[in-house]
């Protein structure tokens, strides 16, 4: 098989996944041209990623919820509510930030598990159960912020989560050294894992892609990581938000692709009856997925509250819909069993890029909503079409 043919067949098999990266690339390129490069400036990309953080972590959890054929509408106000609780713990109860964060995350797991029980054990449709949750958390958020109004947070450590950057150590030509080092480490780890995977496949006598394709892929991905690192280092370097987002993606990507738990989640999503008959505890999987969703909404609440340096009465409004949209743009299927965590992150970045680019261009809010709606519809239409073609 020659190089071109092999590349063609790879694209054909992975059209949905590559399509999204191509879409992101086209969007970024278009905005860059239209804004004379302002869009791809260090400052804008850095801000864009920071603003995506709290939606991106929700989208990761939502991906799994949709994969097992459920939905969670309560995550937005749950995040808002838990952000407010965090603010209260920090300011009124005087609990230090390193205790507050784990407390909030555990609270998130408990709330998520409760949803899981409603859905899996009592059998309430997740749409209804989480709709009820949405109303309850909205009320709860108002209740705890009613007397004080906006609760502003003075804790610098806590506020750094949403606003701070990793230290730079030194600057080289105006670039942050530590961020650069981090980027290089990531590239080395990436290349190492690609090589070790290839070696292990060869050891098993499995077919591997040709050397030329492999080289092109490794060089290409490394170049992209290098480019992003270069851009981000040019401003304040990696923010804590981006670091947290990356850690969440890496952990969830590993969980979903490499572990038994991940496989069970996708099995339940693609055929719950068959999963049950294969000895998989469908209820347990449902609890875990909703529990993780709860934990991630707590994290989202922390990120958002920290970003604003305060808890507001309307925090969390429409987060859930942004997260769901990101997951669908990222290729999750409503029929269950299909969808990648990495896809949803890209989906979240696509949606954030649209907002950011249109803001730079001064597009009115009314048109922004319509355009984002059209992109969501287009992504799902593309999804349905490619799937039909394949079967």
């Amino acid at each position, binding site marked *: 098989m020659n190089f071109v043919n092999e590349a063609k067949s790879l694209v054909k098999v992975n059209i949905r996944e590559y399509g999204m990266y191509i879409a992101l690339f086209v969007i970024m390129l278009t905005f860059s041209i239209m804004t004379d490069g302002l869009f791809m400036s260090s400052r804008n990309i850095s801000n864009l990623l920071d603003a995506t953080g709290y939606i991106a972590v929700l989208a990761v959890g939502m991906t799994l919820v949709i994969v097992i054929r459920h939905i969670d509408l309560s995550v937005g106000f749950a995040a808002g509510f838990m952000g407010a609780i965090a603010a209260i713990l920090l300011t009124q109860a005087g609990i230090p930030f390193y205790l507050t964060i784990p407390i909030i995350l555990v609270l998130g797991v408990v709330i998520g598990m409760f949803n899981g029980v409603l859905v899996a054990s009592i059998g309430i449709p997740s749409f209804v159960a989480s709709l009820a949750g949405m109303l309850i958390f909205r009320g709860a958020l108002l209740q705890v912020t009613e007397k004080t109004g906006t609760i502003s947070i003075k804790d610098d450590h806590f506020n750094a989560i949403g606003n701070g950057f990793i230290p730079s150590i030194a600057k080289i030509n105006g670039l942050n050294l530590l961020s650069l080092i981090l980027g290089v480490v990531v590239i080395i780890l990436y290349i190492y894992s690609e090589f070790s995977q290839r070696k292990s496949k060869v050891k*098993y006598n499995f077919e591997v892609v040709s050397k030329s394709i492999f080289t092109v892929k490794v060089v290409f991905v490394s170049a992209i990581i290098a480019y992003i690192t270069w851009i981000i280092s040019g401003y304040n370097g990696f923010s804590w938000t981006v670091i947290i987002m990356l850690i969440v993606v890496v952990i969830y990507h590993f969980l979903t692709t490499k*572990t*038994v738990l991940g496989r069970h989640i996708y099995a339940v999503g693609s*055929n719950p009856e*068959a*999963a049950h*008959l294969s*000895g998989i505890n469908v209820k347990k999987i449902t609890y875990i997925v909703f529990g993780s969703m709860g934990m991630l909404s707590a994290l989202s609440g922390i990120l958002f509250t920290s970003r604003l340096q305060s808890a507001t009465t309307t925090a969390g409004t429409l987060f859930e819909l942004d997260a769901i949209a990101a997951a669908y743009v990222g290729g999750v299927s409503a029929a269950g069993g299909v969808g990648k965590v990495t896809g949803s992150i890209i989906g979240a970045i696509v949606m954030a890029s649209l907002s950011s680019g249109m803001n730079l261009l001064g597009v009115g809010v009314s048109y922004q909503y319509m355009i984002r709606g059209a992109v969501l519809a287009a992504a799902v239409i593309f999804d349905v079409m490619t799937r039909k073609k394949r079967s």
Partner: protein
Amino acid sequence: MSDYILEMNRISKEFTGVKALSDVTFKVERGEIHCLIGENGAGKSTLMKVLSGVYPHGTYSGDIVFEGSVQNFGKISDSVKTGIAIIYQELALFPDLTVYENIFAGNEVKRGALVDWNQTIVQAKQMLQKVKLNVNPETLIKELGVGKQQLVEIAKALSKNVKLLILDEPTAALNENDSENLLELLRELKNQGITCIMISHKLKEVIAIADKATVLRDGRTICTLDASKGEISESIIIKNMVGREIDDIYPKRANKAIGKTILEVKKWSAHDPQLGRQVVKEVNLHVKKGEIVGIAGLMGSGRTELALSIFGNPKSYKLQGELLLDGIPRTIKHPSEAIKAGIAYVTEDRKGDGLFLIQDIKSNVTAANLRAISSSGVINVNEEVKVANQYKNNLNVKAPSVEQIVGNLSGGNQQKVSLGKWLFVGPKLLILDEPTRGIDVGAKFEIYTIMNKLIDEGMSIIMISSELGEVLGMSDRIYVMAEGRIKGELSIDEADQEKIMQYATQ
């Protein structure tokens, strides 16, 4: 010259390579009760679906002549308009609507653009009188028993001025009393001039009610028997139903070394809370090491329910009785416990609850035993591919690679993947539910060969099957089930098709 209300001439129908009907001719005279008989898969339901327009004109060959004119039904409502109504085994009523709403669903009594509910109720009462059902038309369907629901279905058909009424196993879910009433009603309707086609597995009923009976086998018409000529008797019907010879598509096993009992159930009953009735009744059954035990019986006889109740009870039946594994009493509450205990169950409906159709071959093969290819919860992906390739090669699954999506494979290959998934669990007892349904002869032979190999390796197999040939060709011992009970146990030497059919149609 007979007065035929319906003539179906040389009907053939094919499903992607499988001939379901070939040159079937079926004639029904006006005003008679005509029974349609045959084994599962003989083509009865397909024939009725052709007639009622479920399979539209153009998807089959041959022609349908109804009341003297050729009919080309494009959809179900076309056949309803000409006066043909079909009542399926699974009732098509709306449980949360009232009796009168159900009778006129899709056929509403209108005044202008609105529904005239008062008139509806008046007419519904008349229909209920005709079927001798004495209930308030405002009762909800779900509050009625199955027998009464059946009568509502018939009332619904009558409201559409039906000339030809088709009933698909109307008494399958009914008790003796309700069955008797239903048959009585059919006689009455016959006197009112309504022609009736009834599909039935219960030969006693056929003998009691039929004027004529047509036997189908393997998609062909075998004969039409006439009661007035004394041709409708149990022995004649059974002979025509099973007539096929067992050819040597069943590979022989060399030595039959049968060991100790590994599974036994005693007075085993299962109550399905959703259906609200017993699905398995006081079953006594045992399986020995190195033995293939066949469970014969018609669909709905409780075979699958029995298997599920043993395999961790996934449908949450209420169970009674005793289950022993290797002589030790056990309770198995979840399929995962059954798998641990060494039982595997290959489902009847591989697409519905057997396979993960959107996933690839390797994920399906390893789904029930991921533990074996993982350490501390992390899957060794390369090991998985290796295992999947082994099963793909051993079971001769025809696919370019183990990354192939299972939904795109043929039925036979899907069945092999399903089998591979359960063999990877390493069971002592393998329960196969309709292992060769819907797959071609070549793949069948391969599956039989695999079964024999497993037996040689010391496994035990319970094989549930509707195909008598398969049961007789493969089993060491046969249980026959009907109505949730084991009606008979036969050793392979004494068993023949007639005996099995006799037990199964009791």
